[in-house]
């Protein structure tokens, strides 16, 4: 029974089962199409679709928080931290949203995406007009990428600082108790 549940991914969260379903369907229809038509282009496209969605399903299945859902379904004690429980008490948020949230700060307004977009567009035009637009485009692209990465790094540092301070505060309050 447990093997069947595992093979059919019945203990996986809905989000993961969705990808398993896509992959199984694409492989099934790809094979059927090959035997019906012997036409290589469409068969390769369908099987590649099945392969890509299968990779997604495997990646999601291996997610640590997704494992919590499976353990819970089997009645085991979760081995990793669970997500926040529904504050209203009316739901089971840890099961219903089984993937780790990416917590972060709002990015400050930035023209970096505009610069990267303009740079990529100019560099793409080099395939038609030769190297000149690529030389022009590399400047906004490089500036945009460096600004993007440095501001993302700064925001991550702030989040980590806040988490460190919060962890220290919790440890202090536990020590007092």
């Amino acid at each position: 029974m447990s093997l069947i549940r595992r093979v059919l991914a019945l203990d996986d969260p809905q989000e993961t089962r969705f990808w398993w379903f896509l992959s199984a369907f694409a492989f099934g229809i790809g094979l059927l199409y090959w035997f019906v038509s012997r036409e290589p282009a469409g068969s390769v496209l369908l099987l590649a679709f099945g392969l890509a969605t299968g990779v997604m399903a495997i990646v999601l299945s291996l997610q640590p928080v997704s494992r919590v859902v499976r353990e819970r379904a089997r009645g085991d004690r979760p081995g990793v931290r669970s997500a926040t429980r529904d504050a209203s008490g009316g739901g089971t948020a840890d099961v219903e949203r089984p993937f780790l949230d990416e917590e972060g700060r709002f990015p400050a307004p930035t023209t970096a995406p505009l610069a990267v977009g303009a740079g990529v567009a100019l560099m793409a035009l080099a395939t038609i007009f030769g190297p000149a637009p690529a030389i022009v485009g590399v400047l906004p692209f490089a500036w945009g990428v460096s600004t993007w990465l440095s501001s993302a790094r700064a925001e991550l540092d702030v989040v980590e600082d806040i988490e460190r301070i919060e962890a220290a505060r919790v440890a202090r309050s536990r020590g007092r108790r």
Partner: protein
Amino acid sequence: MSAGAIAVRPAARFSPAEWVSTTDHKRIGILYLVSAFAFFLLGGLIALAMRAELAAPGLQLTDEQGYNQMFTMHGTIMMLLFATPTSAALANYLVPLQVGTADMVFPRLNALSFWLFLFGGLIVLSGYVAAGGPPDIGWTGYPPNSELPYSATTGTDLWIVGLALTGVASILGGINFTATIYTRRAPGMSMLRVPVFTWTVLVTSILILFSFPALTAALAMLLLDRRFGATFFLPAAGGDAILWQHLFWFFGHPEVYIVILPFFGILSEVIPVFSRKPLFGYRAFVFATIVIGVYSFTVWAHHMFTTGAVANPFFSITTFIIAVPTGIKFFNWIATMWRGRIRLATPMLWCLGFIYIFLFGGITGIVLGSPPLDYHLHDTYFVVAHMHNVLVGGTVFALFAGLYFWFPKMTGRRLSEPLGRIHWAAWVVGFPLTFLPQYQLGAIGMPRRYADYSADAGWTLLNQLSTAGSLLLGVGVLVFLVAVGLALRRPPDQPDDPWGGNSLEWWAASPPEHHNFRTIPPIRSERPVFDARERLPGEGRA
């Protein structure tokens, strides 16, 4: 602010610098919407010029080459620079609000998607100033017609590069939407409590992730053929032109559903609100959406029946089967309205228009799914009419339903009901007047993509009716622009939930604050705002 309060608020000052540097999903959504609508106006003007050309036998406005360029740019603009990004626009604005989060998972990437789309679109349009003018290869770009010996204009190369960039933009957007819906849902919002519009965006995003790479690869191969001496699609040099058709339609048919599914979602948000009932068969609707999405990968070669190079029975059967989940949605909408207390406000009128217009497209799709009939109708005006019934009925009617519905949320202002009704009337009369004659033109043999026809062919009256209908559509769009202009001149005065909405965006202020929500109501169904309203009648939100 309390749920029912109406207060006139000062309008926010417009700052171009804030808009170009924004990473806020709401502003990016509006940027998408304005850009896509500008492309729609341009594509519409080209359509009017084509209809004017066809209103009488003989060449009036342009020559055959110019006409080829017109229908190429019209199709490209409407399909890839209007319809696809419009659903991205609404998804950008609404998905984070509907799932109860402050922004997309990757806000900067979201901004990059928009800028790549805009630059890609402008590169496609720059063909108008290139040597030889814009491309003349049809929006499907079939080789060998699109190869260098047959289309020497630089506009064709710009078309390839521009579309590749918009494709990358769509893929980045698809990643962002999928990740946001997976990881940023409010506590309590299980997958089967996700609003239907967001469900359609999720399925659409997955379609984008697996269909757009086929187009990008095909465009890269075509560019290699044209610029770097490759021969992928040149039969004379050992290439295979049919390979392009496989790659293009492996993208192109899911693209039809990429375009349509979010608009199905809009209808499924609007109809329950104005029928004052929950959506009939929420789970069936979600299931049908998933089935349509997945199944759309199996029907691509019904566009290739006449090549003789595909398994026609296979694709005929899959095409017939895909009509079933689409039919489920029709029954969802009809059963939702059944015995509802229907309010015929403008958004609801557009939904009703959608249902009857789209039905023509759906039924004629079944006709074209039959290879014997398709052999007769292929590349005639029957196909043009079917495509417009599906894609214009599917996108523009639902888009206007969505715009009239969510305009108060986006701007704090409401569009004029009288002007909205005039706009709707112009379209609901003009649309069948434009496209029903084209079915008959196709059935009696008028081929598409011809700039001229003989006066003896008996096609003149039907073409004139079609042209008159298209003018009515143009008038309708002008009325809409007037309605938007008038609304934006007024200060914001709409309450947070002017219609009695169901999903979380109606819990936020109108327009929403930068971080969207101060509180989130408990989520115990797919209608959390309805639940909260019922539980706390007359009480304001925290």
